[in-house]
């Protein structure tokens, strides 16, 4: 099956006072309809910047997409005008954010905001758009949607607000949904509900989902494929099962060893020493070299190529075969 979303050679830079920050470097991936791709990494690895680049929501200047293409059903979003892009957002590709309180407008009712989104893309009467909003809120299992639609974001709980965001994002049945840490701000019982909801809607609508998260547990339970990002670059890619069974990049190995697991033994947690390097003036070679236990001379001078090490499982590392 042809992928719905195809990203290739994406490069995004941020011009800062300290110099040019290469936030996203040569990132490529694709997602098929109804599938979930997880982008995994820690703060500053470029995962959110990648998401914002796909939506073309980066503030420019200082941020600039310098190369690459983002194709949704064959159309390159980076070649569209801003006017055309506005039609695409919400209709073909939509996004939900980590903090629904800041993503929703506090002075408009939730129903109004969803209806507004619908009427931007479809010729509907005010009444019909409102009904669609209420319908959608029922769809995301918000209790008493007729009443809730007339409420403001602050009157809802965090989980409810995230449901409202999902209702808005999926109201026009987009082909691609980008979910940027959608459950990080939620309690675990609510997180489970929201993840179940996204999965159900995805199955029903055949949406391709790009899930951005730092939580390996969430990845394991929801994603079909995953890519691991570090300091703006993709360092590993493959099916979720393969990456968990046989992580190749020392960074992913370290990440997996550093997460305490329920039911695990009380061994000492594995640490990854040091911190993510600042993305300004990155050293030559592998960006992980300073924290890597397997580092060799070559790692400090040459960037390791992203190559397939197993069938459908690739990594950027000189040392792992």
């Amino acid at each position: 099956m042809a992928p719905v979303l195809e990203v290739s050679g994406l490069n995004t830079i941020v011009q800062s006072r300290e110099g040019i920050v290469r936030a996203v470097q040569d990132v490529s991936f694709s997602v098929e309809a109804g599938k979930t791709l997880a982008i995994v990494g820690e703060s500053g690895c470029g995962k959110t910047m990648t998401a914002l680049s796909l939506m073309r929501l980066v503030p420019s200047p200082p941020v600039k997409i310098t190369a690459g293409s983002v194709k949704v059903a064959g159309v390159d979003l980076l070649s569209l005008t801003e006017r055309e892009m506005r039609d695409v957002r919400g209709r073909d590709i939509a996004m939900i954010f980590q903090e629904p309180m800041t993503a929703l407008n506090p002075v408009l009712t939730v129903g109004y905001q969803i209806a507004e989104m619908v009427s931007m893309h479809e010729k509907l009467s005010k009444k019909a758009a409102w009904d669609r909003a209420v319908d959608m809120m029922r769809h995301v299992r918000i209790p008493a949607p007729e009443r809730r639609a007339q409420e403001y974001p602050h009157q809802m709980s965090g989980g409810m607000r995230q449901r409202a965001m999902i209702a808005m994002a999926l109201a026009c049945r987009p082909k691609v949904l980008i979910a940027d840490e959608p459950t990080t701000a939620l309690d675990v019982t609510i997180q489970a509900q929201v993840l179940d909801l996204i999965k159900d809607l995805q199955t029903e609508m055949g949406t391709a989902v790009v899930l951005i998260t730092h939580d390996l547990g969430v990845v394991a339970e929801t994603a079909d494929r995953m890519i691991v990002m570090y300091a703006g670059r993709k360092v590993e890619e493959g099916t979720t099962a393969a990456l968990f069974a046989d992580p190749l990049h020392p960074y992913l190995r370290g990440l997996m060893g550093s997460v305490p697991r329920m039911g695990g033994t009380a061994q000492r947690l594995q640490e990854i020493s040091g911190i993510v390097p600042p993305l300004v003036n990155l050293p030559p070679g592998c960006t992980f070299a300073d924290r890597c236990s397997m580092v060799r001379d070559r790692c400090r001078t040459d960037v390791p190529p992203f190559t397939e090490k197993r069938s459908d499982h690739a990594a950027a590392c000189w040392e792992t075969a």
Partner: protein
Amino acid sequence: MTALLQVEGLRKTYPLKSGFLSRVHEMVHAVDGLDFQVQAGQTLGLVGESGCGKSTVGRTVLRLVEPTGGAIKFEGVDLASLSRGQMRMLRQRMQIVFQDPFSSLNPRMKAGAIVAESLNAFAVGTAAERKDRVAHLFERVGLTPRQMGMYPHQFSGGQRQRIAIARALAPGPSFIVADEPVSALDVSVQAQVINLLMDLQAQDGLAYLFISHNLAVVEHVCHDVAVMYLGRIVEYTSKNRLFSRPLHPYTKALMAAVPIPDPSLKREKQHIGGDVPSPINRPSGCHFHPRCPMAQARCRTEDPVLREVEGGHRVACHLV
């Protein structure tokens, strides 16, 4: 054996004022009658979702927030009987590390001065001795004495949390409240800080009250665990018992909701619905009954008490 920290019937309510002459209309029941104890050199985990009152507990046992009711005994001393001055002196023995290392360090003080502050306040030793002690503390938490002259913004999140830990260690406490100490950190850095806390416990025999919403972290660091829901403890036992045989339906739901980082485990999970209710208008009877898959008529009317069901395993549920 008497416990290092013994808490009985701890309560904290906040009045909600509104309307004419600021009349008290409603009460927020943040902490509602808690009994627990922390043994010397051990870690008690306090786990629950946002709004369950776990952070309020951490603050009330240090009397950073005055409790509304209940007794707190630390090293045999009843804290309620102490004056402010005496309480201040006792805080050399009981310290706290907060969640957010960005807001808990004064941005205008150098890291060394932040750690030295309590030593200065309690006038420990001479100035030179204090400086040596700070340098030593920096080394113990994995920083270098060279970094004493730097400001908080020059450190990463994990390093800042190390400064906060050094500050807590400075006066030589036997007990530290760790309020979500790793929640704001990246996973790889989380591991560094968890290991540090456990090393310090092994070396100094520190006791922790470890407050967290993360069950996996709690299982990793704690000896005993108390699960809180809406201001009350619903289950309280040793870590091993809790994780091998959870009894309260809320504990079970919480464990089922934690995503497991292993894609080969395809669990068919039953997730509980609903939101955590507000601590202002709490459900009648068992506070968990509107979300509980096993709820019966009795749960709606009668408060379950926390009682021992098996050796050292206490549960507040009518059905267990």
